[in-house]
């Protein structure tokens, strides 16, 4: 509770803080009350619109759970395909040869600069025009392709940062015992970098899960957000459906975030290697050209 930013509150500060708390609470309650009043007024709180979610388990088995499964499927496929691709490009960007480094950098920067939605729209139309993929799986292919192209380039940066975070002594020691460059990478650097990268990779999974919703809205993939339309077509409860689905996303992503944090702590505690553990935030800073992040246990309240 002590912070460097403010003194330990004395009697006057305590009184002032209580006033702030009351005013802020009043404002929050006013907004909340207004929201509930309007929703009740417009009939959005009618029991009929919410009841299906609690009383009718078939809502879940018919619409929500299959759709959640599709969301997870697309996200898992995208991560699984993007990882090796990202590793290849990340390592390629560290190559000693300019003709490998240059193109790899160009590809990575290009796909990081383009919106995922544009990539999805393109791949959907591309598969429709130039390939014979069945329309059943085409939206899935389009969504996964878009996600893979974008996330592979982000993960390439994760891998690169992970390898760069290892102390130089690792490479030098490997060279000293006569390992070749490829061996150094596969036997020494990558295994250590992977442990350091795990939390960042799980954080990236949150981004992927959120982006699958774009596929439902614009490409027609039958994922969680899309199920709102089918479901509310039958129950005529589009606003409640949206709220339920939003809560499902929050819970799912919160679990993933917590898992990433847990993994980060575990990796840090049990580490034998000498690299740093990368979190998503540190990663952003590694990517940017700014000063090295200094995160040494300073309190922020």
């Amino acid at each position: 509770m002590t912070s460097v930013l403010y003194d330990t509150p004395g009697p006057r500060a305590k009184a002032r803080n209580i006033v702030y708390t009351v005013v802020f609470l009043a404002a929050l309650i006013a907004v909340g009350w207004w929201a509930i009043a309007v929703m009740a007024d417009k009939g959005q709180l009618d029991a009929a619109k919410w009841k299906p979610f609690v009383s009718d388990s078939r809502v879940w088995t018919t619409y929500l759970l299959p759709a959640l499964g599709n969301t997870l499927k697309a996200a898992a496929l995208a991560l699984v395909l993007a990882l090796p691709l990202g590793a290849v490009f990340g390592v390629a960007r560290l190559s000693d040869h300019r003709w490998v480094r240059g193109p790899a950098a160009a590809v990575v920067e290009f796909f990081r600069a383009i919106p995922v939605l544009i990539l999805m729209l393109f791949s959907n139309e591309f598969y429709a025009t130039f390939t014979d993929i069945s329309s059943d799986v085409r939206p899935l292919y389009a969504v996964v392709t878009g996600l893979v192209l974008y996330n592979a380039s982000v993960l390439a940066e994760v891998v690169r940062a992970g390898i760069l975070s290892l102390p130089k002594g690792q490479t030098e020691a490997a060279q000293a015992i006569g390992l070749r460059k490829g061996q150094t990478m596969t036997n020494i650097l990558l295994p250590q970098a992977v442990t350091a990268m795990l939390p960042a990779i799980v954080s990236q999974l949150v981004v992927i899960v959120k982006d699958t919703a774009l596929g439902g809205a614009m490409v027609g993939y039958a994922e969680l957000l899309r199920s709102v339309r089918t479901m509310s077509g039958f129950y005529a409860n589009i606003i409640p459906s949206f709220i339920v689905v939003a809560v499902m996303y929050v819970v799912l992503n919160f679990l993933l975030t917590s898992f990433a944090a847990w993994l980060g702590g575990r990796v840090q505690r049990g580490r034998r290697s000498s690299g740093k553990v990368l979190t998503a935030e540190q990663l952003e800073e590694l990517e940017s050209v700014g000063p090295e992040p200094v995160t040494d246990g300073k309190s922020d309240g």
Partner: protein
Amino acid sequence: MFDFLEGYDLLGAFWVTVQLTVYSAVGSLIWGTLLAGMRVSPVPLMRGFGSAYVNVVRNIPLTIIILFTAMGLADTFGVTMGAADDVKTRVFRLAVLGLVAYHAAFVCEALRSGINTVPVGQAEAARSLGLRFTQVLTLVILPQAFRSVVGPMANVLIALTKNTTVAAVIGVSEAALLMSEMIENEAELLLISAIFAFGFVCLTLPTGLILGWVSKRVAVKR
């Protein structure tokens, strides 16, 4: 070769994208700074609100947030953003609102990590001068924090530029909506995609380069 472009307002669509980006960037910066202020404030309720807001909003797909501004705020709550009779303006402003609500969470987190990089001595010195919390924050901490987070902020800005495409789901006539219309009606898929990809590279790459240069210039030397 480019005659299929006739009848499409390509520059107009990208102009809408730019406008969405600029308005949302300014809005997210302000709201995100306020949120960051709340997260480090002495009032526990504000800290709680700040972290709850960030953790919830970061975990919801932007698509849902944008759809909610239109279907929830405008259609249900009657918040028409001063444009009750002009649908085009209304969806534009709603999209900006949604983008601000979403990206402010990221601005807040970037800024908070920036506050962490300011040495403890700075805050202690400020307090020993008798400055209050708001003064410590606005006069001493934030100016230094901002200078150290130009890089992460640039990443948020680039993400924001790309995320403006999501506004297409409520019918804001920006680049992605035009692209989906064009690839449906015209045959030149590869060329159209290349044009839009090029457009976005033109928007995002200079942002990254310029702000990268700025971040080096303004970084606090320690």
